[in-house]
């Protein structure tokens, strides 16, 4: 029961830290980076996964906070397996995420 509570609290803290980081993105990029690092550490300590939409905001290679249009580029590749490519503009690394087909 206690473990469950810790995970809930951790999720809430991560949510709040990411919101703050997005707010601070233009004024204080250094602080935004710090908040995201904190959020990752909290997730590791509480043994939870970062939510999917948050995971897209962290570079897989250099672990920095990347935001589409500011420090990352997002491109969609529809042919072959449909996927999107996120390029980190700090380290130049790519992350690929599959786009699943909608089953209608």
């Amino acid at each position: 029961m206690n473990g469950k509570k810790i995970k809930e609290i951790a999720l809430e803290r991560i949510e709040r830290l990411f919101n703050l980081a997005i707010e601070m993105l233009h004024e204080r990029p250094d602080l935004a980076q710090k908040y995201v690092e904190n959020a990752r550490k909290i997730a590791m300590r509480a043994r939870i996964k970062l939510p999917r939409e948050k995971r897209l905001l962290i570079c897989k290679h250099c672990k920095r906070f990347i935001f589409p249009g500011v420090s990352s580029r997002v491109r969609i590749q529809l042919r072959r397996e449909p996927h999107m490519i996120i390029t980190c503009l700090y380290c130049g690394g790519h992350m690929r995420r599959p786009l699943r087909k909608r089953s209608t």
Partner: protein
Amino acid sequence: MRNLSHILQDELIGLRVKVVKSSNPSCIGLSGKIIDETKNTFKILHNGDEKILIKKDCVFHFTLPDKTVIEVNGKVLIGRPEDRVKKIIRRRW
């Protein structure tokens, strides 16, 4: 109500804080938004300039997002922000 009993485990960055008691007389009365936290200190934005407060010397008034004010002794807040997630609650304040 959840916030009241979980302040020790909760996120403090972004909250408004006021120092009510301190062993360092020049810290008393400082207030502002917390912008950074380390194991032993807070960094706050007081009228546009950054101030560093030592946790163990001060008693704080925190304003939670829902406008309630609580008084917390800085001694119980010692610890890195990511370590405080797992802190056991003891009612001391």
